[in-house]
């Protein structure tokens, strides 16, 4: 197999050592995951949502991750970023923001932070599925959501292709 030199920022390593908001949340308002157990990478996000000053606000967030150090660090940073934010604010967080907060990810690891954002967007969509959709939430999938889904599909496709090669 061809390996690659992979230089993580010290920030990624620090967060990997001490991730924040780790683990299952029993009283979560919504749970969503992105990735696929078949391919390996999974990020699972738990959000506790309450009305604060009349706004739907994320009062608690946590994560679980089945992936590389970038995956773990991305999920950890994401849960830090959304805590205390209104859902509307959280909706606008981009994978680039996560990567920047982590001191920059190696390009081959971008998809790990894209998956983290995908899990968050999926959780927000899910939350509003049985509730009235707020105006700011686009009815159609946004390019960023599509991108996260693309990553999932890409990994899935790769897996299928490889399975054939492997047998």
């Amino acid at each position, binding site marked *: *197999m*061809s390996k690659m030199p992979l*230089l993580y920022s*010290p920030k990624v390593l620090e967060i990997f050592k001490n*991730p924040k908001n780790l683990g299952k949340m029993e009283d979560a308002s919504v749970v969503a995951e992105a990735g696929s157990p078949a391919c390996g990478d999974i990020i699972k996000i738990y959000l506790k949502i309450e009305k604060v000053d009349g706004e739907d606000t994320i009062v608690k967030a946590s994560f679980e991750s089945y*992936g*590389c150090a970038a995956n773990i660090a991305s999920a950890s940073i994401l849960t830090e970023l959304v805590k205390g934010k209104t859902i509307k604010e959280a909706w606008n967080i981009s994978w680039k923001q996560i990567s920047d907060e982590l001191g920059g990810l190696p390009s081959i690891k971008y998809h790990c932070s894209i998956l983290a954002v995908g899990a968050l967007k999926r959780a927000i969509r899910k939350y509003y599925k049985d509730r009235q959709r707020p105006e700011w939430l686009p009815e159609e999938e946004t390019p960023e959501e599509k991108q996260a889904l693309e990553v999932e599909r890409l990994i899935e496709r790769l897996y299928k292709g490889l399975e054939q090669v492997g047998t």
Partner: protein
Amino acid sequence: MSVKELLKSHGTPPREVYFDLENSPFVPKEVVEEMLPYFNKYGYGNPAITHKPGWEAYGVLLEAKEFIAKTICAESPEEIVFTHSGTEANNLAVLGIALKNRKRKGKIVVSAIEHLSVTFAAEYSSKLFGHEVAVVPVDEDGFIDPEIFEAYMSKDVFLVSIQTVNHEIGTIQNIKELVKIAKDYNPDVVFHTDAAEAYARLRFSVKDLGVDLVTLSSSKIHGPRGAGALYVRRGIELEPVIRGQISVEKLWPGAENIPAIVGFKKAAELAFDNFEENVKKMKNLRDMLMEGILDRVPDVLVNGPRGNLRAPDNVNVSFLYVEGEALTIELSLRGIYVSSASACTSRMLEPSHVLLAIGRKYEEAHGSILFKISRYHSEEDINYALENIVEAVKRLREISPIKGVKNE
């Protein structure tokens, strides 16, 4: 981002055990000391030049060939060709024979678990000369079924390349039997075996195996990087695959790396002194590590065979529900250095072709970790590793959303 900052954040663990001998050697002091004079005191000349340092260099080069030839029961030291690595020796074997056969249509047979320096060289030959490459499958432990192998033989096969021992899962192939099948079919077929992982851990004789070409690598036996060798049985014709000024080796142009060759020889000498004892020690440590992991960590799969057909230095296991790259980093923070064949560690985001070839599913390859044992490890090293493996896997499983039945 700088490497310095990353290393500062990593810190130096109180104890360090290096198991990643597959990816880079640990070169012991005796070997380094043997090499040192050849940089500037003795034999630092070019072995093809007529002066004292040149003749000295030529002298040690011949001695190294003699020693290595003897250890694999070659007929003559002239059958040993030095390259600068195992990768180069594999390329010389595969492409050297392919070049010789470039004018004909023909077939190269390799296994599904060869080192990429064989696999890619064969693919390159197909691209350059239109040769067909047939890939023989392996079973769930990495073994080739002789009957299936025989079905791959045909009159147009001009080269077979099957490794003696697999570098990832430690499968010891029955080369002698495969050579017999191939040669019975066609006595002119050239049989190459990549023995980089077998040399100095298994005793083998090229005459007994009946092989024509054999790859060896210094860096796989605690020698330095910068030296490899191809055994070329007398009478086998190859074409050089790189071009340049010929020094000693007609098949591999460029000046020979004398200090590395000296280190290669010294490393081989150390391995062959007390050979049986060294191997016994490796096997004991291997079993101690493998059994220890299986005893103490739930949900672990062994990759590769168990027992006598597993290389004495190979431990490869998959820790389910965790990802291998994260685990290599977690173990590194604890001073245990290993590698993984998970998709996340690869350039292509795909798991190793070896694990896929033995039927491992993507998620089973995901938590794979390779340990290479050597005679320089001690029981204390293994115990230290075991304690930390237990802790590291536990921590990452706490992070993982997927839990085993036992962990729910």
